[in-house]
């Protein structure tokens, strides 16, 4: 497969981009070469165990870990003491939800989350329900955003934590974090946000937004896989129970030897994102709009899923009516996109996120998630548009549903044999 170097060449001005083109930046991002360079010495020269307190190998590693911790804290306006390293956003989300709920069990047994959260939040909540907690799953509006009044009305005296993702992994919509934070703080309820898709893409500040816990992923921001972080507020202090016990690392909240090179990588990724976020967002928005407009100019009946304005610049989620998403993906095999999220796309069910927006099942089956990112060029976009348009046209020409639509037959009027 393409290495980063190949991608870089592709962005450095050739007419035909290097294929396959990676447009799946919400599934994972390539590790930025600058991040890789920063990490490499910590595999070899500074290979020590950062918890070895007795010699310089350990101290060097520890120093690097602490620098990285400060870099992570900086991008979200937190104090470095509030950053817990984990193995990834999945662990961060599990720790935030189960950890806080377990600590407060008996006194506060109610959890609020949203139907469009990442699977690991929903699965953690299901698990809490089995343990006797009560969970409210807030619906979303047609644009993918929650209704703040509904949130307010759902909070009860025994509500322990509200978990609302910052940016949705499938449709890229940004929830109104500052408003949610205000509501939670006023109600004295913890506010957790899964910011795996948000950090480094939109400005985030845990103070201004009154966020108490925030999950961060390394590999979604051009950092390494296998590392994430959880921001845990110290004032007022958030109390949680650890999921992984042992050496008592990370102030007892998460045991296990810290992987120094990965910590360094996440720190560097945050530092780069913090420096470049503004310009990068502008560039991606231009590319995203170019793509969306070119597709709409050439194809009728293309629908955008999720709000366009409250959305990260690197995401498009489009339904190409009458063309099935998986079939379409196969038709654009030079372009790596996804239908549904990466964790579930091996299954055949339509995306639960799209269903939650009220997208009809037949339309949900026709959706593609297109993720643009740091190494996406204008040529990539144009190439992708050309091939997507061709594939959609070809597949529509052989779609019985398209044929019926052209003949004016209402597909809903047909008695389908659901199987």
């Amino acid at each position, binding site marked *: 497969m393409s290495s980063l170097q190949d991608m870089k060449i592709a962005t450095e001005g050739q007419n035909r981009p290097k294929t396959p083109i990676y447009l799946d930046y919400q599934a994972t991002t390539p590790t930025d070469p600058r991040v890789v360079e920063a990490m490499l010495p910590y595999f070899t020269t500074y290979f020590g165990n950062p*918890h070895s307190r007795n010699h310089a190998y350990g101290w060097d590693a520890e120093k690097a870990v602490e620098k990285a911790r400060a870099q992570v804290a900086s991008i979200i306006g937190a104090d470095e003491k509030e950053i817990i390293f984990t193995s990834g956003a999945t662990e961060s989300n599990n720790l935030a939800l189960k950890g806080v709920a377990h600590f407060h069990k008996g006194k506060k047994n109610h959890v609020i989350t949203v139907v469009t959260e990442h699977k690991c939040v929903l699965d953690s909540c299901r698990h809490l329900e089995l343990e006797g907690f009560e969970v409210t799953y807030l619906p979303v509006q047609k644009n993918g955003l929650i209704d703040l009044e509904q949130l307010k009305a759902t909070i009860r005296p025994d509500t322990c934590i509200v978990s609302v993702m910052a940016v949705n992994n499938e449709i890229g919509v940004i929830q109104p974090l500052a408003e949610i934070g205000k509501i939670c703080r006023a109600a004295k309820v913890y506010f957790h946000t899964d910011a795996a898709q948000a950090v480094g893409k939109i400005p985030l500040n845990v103070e201004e937004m009154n966020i108490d816990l925030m999950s961060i992923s390394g590999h979604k921001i051009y950092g390494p*896989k296998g590392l994430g972080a959880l921001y845990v507020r110290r004032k007022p202090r958030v109390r949680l129970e650890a999921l992984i016990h042992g050496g*008592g690392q990370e102030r007892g909240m998460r045991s296990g030897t810290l992987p120094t090179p990965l910590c360094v990588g996440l720190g560097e990724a945050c530092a780069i994102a913090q420096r470049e976020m503004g310009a990068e967002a502008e560039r991606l928005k231009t590319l995203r709009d170019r793509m969306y407009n070119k597709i709409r100019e050439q194809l009728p009946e293309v629908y955008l899923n999720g709000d366009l304005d409250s959305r990260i610049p690197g995401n498009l989620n489009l339904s190409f009516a009458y063309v099935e998403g998986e079939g379409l993906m196969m038709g654009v095999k030079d372009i790596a996109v996804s239908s549904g999220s990466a964790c579930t796309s091996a299954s055949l069910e339509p995306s639960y996120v799209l269903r939650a927006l009220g997208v009809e099942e037949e339309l949900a089956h026709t959706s593609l998630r297109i993720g643009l990112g740091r190494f996406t060029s204008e040529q990539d976009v144009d190439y992708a548009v050309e091939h997507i348009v061709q594939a959609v046209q070809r597949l529509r020409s052989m779609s019985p549903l398209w044929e019926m639509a052209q003949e004016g037959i209402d597909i809903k009027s047909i008695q389908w044999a659901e199987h």
Partner: protein
Amino acid sequence: MSNAIYMDANATTLPSASALAAMEVALRTAGNPSSVHGFGRATRALVDRARAQVAQLVAAKAENVIFVSSGTEANNLALASGGGRPLIVSGIEHDSVLKPAQLAGARVLQVRRTGQVDLDDLAAALRETGRPAFVSIMLANNETGVIQPVREAADLVHEAGGLLHCDASQAPGRIALDLSALGADLLSLSAHKMGGALGAGALVLKRDIAVNPILLGGGQERFRRAGTENVPAIAGFGAAAEEARTAVHATRLAALRDRLESKLAGVDIAIIGGEAPRLPNTSCIVVAGKSSETLVMALDLAGFAVSAGSACSSGKVRPSHVALAMGYGEEVARSAIRISLGWWNSESEIDLLATRLADFAGRKVHTLPDMQPAA
């Protein structure tokens, strides 16, 4: 950058060249293993290959290898999977076994002065519980290197209808490791203790035992451990496992370690666990009258990186829980230092260390107050 001679392999090893190469390739390969497109499949292939390599290391089936983020997570996952069976652990386990075991109210097994778990106590504990138990006994202790009678323990546990988990983090590349021969039902491994990188571990199952996941979410690792796979660390783990399978360095490491200990014969020191079969690379030494804190610091100044007890503790030097469990008193437990060697160490380094240690010991000759059993 430190110029010290690194003799703390049981804390973490230098990554092997093949592991580094595999990791670098993976670091530069874009893709999420769960994605169905070519980028995803390329990273999936790296994970699959590593899974086969790790399985081969311990002669297990690839589908029974669960990749996790560390040995600590593997141990936590194992102990969470007891399925309600009463829990029994040895007193010299790593904190990542002991802590969750304590929280679950486990019965802690006595350990003999040799550093080996007391099998009579295990038999007694199995009788006490009266129903099939979940037992955790490590293969080789991280502080003393003492190899535990896991096979015998497994027979006792299985006779009583229970399951045996074995934390084998320190074993790969040092001693032979075969899941069937060992008799364990679950086995924990840590990549960075065997020449791989920090950030990957595995729980290996002898057969398809129901695992109670700690991390919920995506369906990764056959629904036993959610979270996007740490592809580079896993790729490095695989390469390290392949290298460890041959244990090419074991003989040389044993020669180095024995050279150190024989050079120290006649010096006022004691070897903890020296009577028992040990890992070839580990020596746990008490120098009369020197606290481990003082000794480790003095050695650091002299250019040797060694450790007092295990590296996971929070900085404050605690008495070694392993030495305490072996029946030694506080003073010895506060004096034990660990020399753990790797393929990178040389004879001349050993000779330098021996001279230094003899020097420290000789400055103030002491007889150890409580090297004899208290009772």
